[in-house]
């Protein structure tokens, strides 16, 4: 196969990775500051996608306006849900043992996923892409879906935004100080639990954003939450728990790996290559855990 074809796959893989990054960055951010792996993150992302679907029904399908409304409305709504969850549930378990945290977030997965089933049912849905993102752009003789290119641009913008916020603003200072010195911060008159709530809401906002972008990317159904949280978990472990830069690299590795591997394997004659490719995120995670247990960008626990 031609180089061009691989390039095409590479770009699609990168955009898949960018979508993954937007969701995984929220997961890693929340873990970094709150020290809780929120397995319900995938469910919040799914709710975001379904909310975007419902919202799209209220407006002219495929209009630029409706797309912007979804982008502006849905992520804050998910952040509000996050606020309620953090305020009523999560803040009780920050100092609890991991098992309890796991039980709570997993219980939330079951509850939220069934709520989605109750409200939206089990049928796969999709949201019409806005017209100007619906076509394709030609690039070195390839026709790339405009929407993929769009996501390819959004991802780095989010990464840059997060980096600027974390390392160049005082909000970021507060978040990073909360990671290392929560008690000192409290002694300086900072309401640390509010910093934690805000971080959680930001993480949920990112999940919601991922959901909106996903709703126009592919079909959405009841399985996408679970599917994405597992991928995100792999991404975050590969990149290093709590590291946003690591989440970016991990997402791109997984995104490109998932798109490339089936083709690569098939071209060397492996039977049922796409099924083998499913193993890739977990194999990658296992390798990283063996070679560098704290992840590519993480730091060993002191």
């Amino acid at each position, binding site marked *: 196969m031609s180089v061009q074809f691989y390039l095409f796959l590479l770009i699609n893989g990168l955009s898949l990775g960018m979508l993954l990054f937007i969701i995984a960055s929220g997961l890693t951010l929340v873990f970094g500051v709150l020290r809780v792996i929120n397995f319900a993150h995938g469910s919040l992302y799914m709710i975001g996608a379904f909310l975007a679907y419902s919202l799209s029904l209220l407006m002219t399908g495929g209009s630029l306006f409706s797309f912007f409304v979804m982008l502006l409305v849905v992520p804050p709504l998910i952040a509000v849900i996050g606020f309620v969850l953090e305020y009523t549930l999560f803040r009780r378990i920050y100092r609890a043992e991991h098992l309890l945290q796991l039980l709570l977030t997993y219980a939330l997965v079951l509850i939220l996923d069934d709520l989605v089933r109750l409200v939206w049912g089990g049928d796969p849905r999709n949201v019409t892409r806005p017209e100007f993102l619906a076509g394709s752009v030609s690039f070195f003789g390839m026709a790339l879906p405009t929407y993929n290119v769009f996501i390819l641009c959004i991802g780095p913008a989010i990464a840059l935004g997060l980096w600027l916020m974390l390392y160049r603003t*005082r*909000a970021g200072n507060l978040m990073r100080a909360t990671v290392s010195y929560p008690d000192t911060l*409290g*002694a*300086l008159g900072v*309401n640390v639990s509010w910093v934690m709530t805000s971080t959680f809401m930001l993480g949920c906002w990112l999940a919601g954003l991922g959901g909106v972008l996903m709703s126009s990317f592919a079909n959405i159904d009841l399985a996408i939450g679970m599917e994405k949280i597992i991928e995100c978990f792999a991404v975050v472990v590969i990149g290093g728990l709590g590291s946003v830069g690591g989440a970016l690299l991990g997402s791109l590795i997984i995104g490109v790996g998932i798109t490339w591997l089936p083709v690569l394997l098939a071209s060397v004659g492996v039977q049922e290559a796409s099924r083998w490719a499913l193993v890739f995120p977990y194999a990658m995670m296992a390798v990283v855990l063996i070679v560098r247990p704290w992840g590519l960008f993480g730091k060993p626990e002191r």
Partner: protein
Amino acid sequence: MADHVLQIEKLSKSFEGSQVFNNISFAVDQGELSSIIGPNGAGKTTLFNLMTGYHVPDSGRVVFMGKDIAGRQPYDIVRLGIARAFQRTNIFPRMSVLENLVSTVITKNRGNLNVVTPSAKLKSAHERSYEILESVGLADVAHRQSGTLAHGNQKRLDIAVALALEPQLLLLDEPTAGMSPEERWQTVELVQQLWENLKITMLFIEHDMDIVFKISQKVRVLCYRTLLAEGTPEEISSNEQVIEAYLGEEV
């Protein structure tokens, strides 16, 4: 009553059944420099913890500037005007001395929601930080990483950080703990000098009797779950009960 910055009213606290305080009461006057002494385990630090929101009293009130603050969150109490220099130093060890101060000054003056401007660009916060560092004698080590400072200087930094919060009441938990005799007296001088210049109310915990009697206007003795005695250094050093319970025969 109006000139009492802090009133402790009938405060009781126990941990897992063992009582630390039983019904203690006292009041701290505006502008006073006073001390709390007592044998190990008398609950001196616990008393500070109760005043600053780290512990919640079982009963009784902690009235600061007319408000009952017992059971409020530590950050809230800091905002109301009680700052505390900790026994264990309480700084960001990997930041420079100046950065520690700047972060504190910004936190204090938080234009509340302006969390977007990078801290390095806030000029007034830098000027204010230098001013405080000069007042505690740390200006020449402003750019050192604070974790690498000598113990005495870390304590000074801790005091500087507490001062940057512009408290009405400054609590110092063993400001001279772990220092050499020379450093001790330098720190004592510093505390007294700051008290004279800033005219804030200071309450400190101290073990060294020479220091306590030299600079306190009032001494309070905690012992056996109660406030054993309260008075001027002269009164305390001649109080029979205190001598018997705590100071020992030879004083």
